């Protein structure tokens, strides 16, 4: 009973915060709400008996990635989102990124509904063995999931090298 209540609490916070992220004009508030959403998500992991995943969620997303987001937002000092379109006409009635975004959102929604219908509403259960402990996760990462794990790290390395190449200024003698 108590854990049901906390589940609904965390789920409500996660959904509300995620919705508010895209409803903000001020990017700093968006970043903060995203952090709140990650926090609620990590609460859900705790309820699923996976404290390790919960803490990693906080360390990696809330503690590292979002700090970089905040850093970039502050450096650009983008205090308010610029509205480039004519505000008298509804944005969906004009050409521009809004219309494209709305189309993408609709496509995603249809895909999601289709996937959920096809999945037959199976919920909750983990496939195979429980993967909550540190040891189990470590073993899975270096045996069954070793290839995707390494490929992901190479992908991140490529992105990093790309960023360094782009950001480096050529020095002439």
């Amino acid at each position, binding site marked *: 009973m108590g854990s049901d209540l906390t589940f609904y609490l965390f789920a409500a916070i996660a959904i509300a915060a995620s919705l508010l992220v895209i409803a903000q004009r001020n990017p*700093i508030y968006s970043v*903060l709400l995203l*952090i709140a959403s990650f926090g609620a998500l990590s609460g859900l992991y705790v309820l699923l008996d996976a*404290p*390790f995943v919960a*803490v*990693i969620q*906080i*360390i990696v997303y*809330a*503690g*590292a990635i979002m*700090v*970089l987001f*905040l*850093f970039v937002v*502050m*450096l650009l000092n983008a205090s308010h989102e610029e509205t480039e379109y004519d505000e008298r006409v509804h944005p969906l009635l004009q050409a521009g990124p809004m219309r494209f975004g709305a189309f993408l959102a609709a496509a995603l929604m249809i895909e999601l509904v289709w996937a959920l219908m096809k999945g037959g509403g199976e919920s909750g259960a983990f496939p195979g063995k429980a993967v909550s402990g*540190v040891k189990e996760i470590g073993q899975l990462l270096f045996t069954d999931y070793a290839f995707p794990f390494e490929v992901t790290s190479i992908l991140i390395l490529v992105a990093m090298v790309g960023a360094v190449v782009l950001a480096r200024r050529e020095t002439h003698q």
Partner: protein
Amino acid sequence: MTLLVAQIVLTLFVFFMLLNSAAVMVYVERKVAAFLQQRLGPYRVGWQGVLQPLADIVKLLFKEELRPRAADAFLFALAPVISATCAFAAFAVVPFGAETTLGGWLPEPLRLQVSDVNVAILVVFAIASMSVYGIVLAGWSSNSKYSLLGGLRSSAQMISYELSYGLALASVLLLGQSMSLTDIVNLQSGTWFGFIPRWNVFFLPCGLIAFLIYMTAGIAETNRAPFDFPEAEQELVAGYHTEYSSMSFAMFFLAEYVNMVTVSAVATDLFLGGWHGPFLPESFGWIWFLVKVGAILFFYVWMRWTLPRYRYDQLMRFGWKVLLPVAVVNLLATAAGVLYFGL
């Protein structure tokens, strides 16, 4: 029932002791600073000035709460709260004594730890990584150049040193074969060859190197001299808390001291054997714990009044080009050692 009450009392006890520790640290800091600079320090309020922190608190309470007109009101108020909350939260998983029944008064032994989490090390790390938000938001929401520079500096600094901090924690994790702080402390009881305590810091050379990396990164994480760039008085006035006054300033101040206490307490648990020590029975282990934490805190203060502040580029170069490679190599060496000797 008694146990529940005892647990609540313990939680409140830890909370108030942390509050008190900040007051004590303010006094110690001023007295030690005075000693190192051949002054007397505070000596008028109470015997040898021991009531000086009380006077400071009263002064701060009666000051006017100021806010720049262009500041973001909500975030300006939220930032010190985040700082103080993160500072207190991390101590929740830190054990500070062996299990005790308080001389048979309790039916079951009580852990001297607010909450025993089996991923305690990671919780400490996660909360440390969250505490940067208080400073960054304070810097941004003040809408002042000095504050913003302080906030930017702190986010760059804390991200840079967090990596080495995490790798030092990982080395201990390998030595202790557990992520629970209680397990790690208990593994450090007893002695080697009858006289060297089995503390992780004496696990040469990896333990000692990990300890030095942990302390260096810990000082950087808590923004203390010689790494106090976010507030560097001479360049940034007071950095992120330039615009703060009265109680919201006091909360940043409180957060800084409580963070110091937490880093010292975690260092004691991870490297210095926690509450284990000679001469005292297990039930008085908390005395050893206090002695060790006190020694590290004194070291903190000593450092601040001895070393000059580095330059910002030196800080970054040191963090990325010296500390991080050493931490990585040390982690690999620890892993190899643990595998080879089969600890």
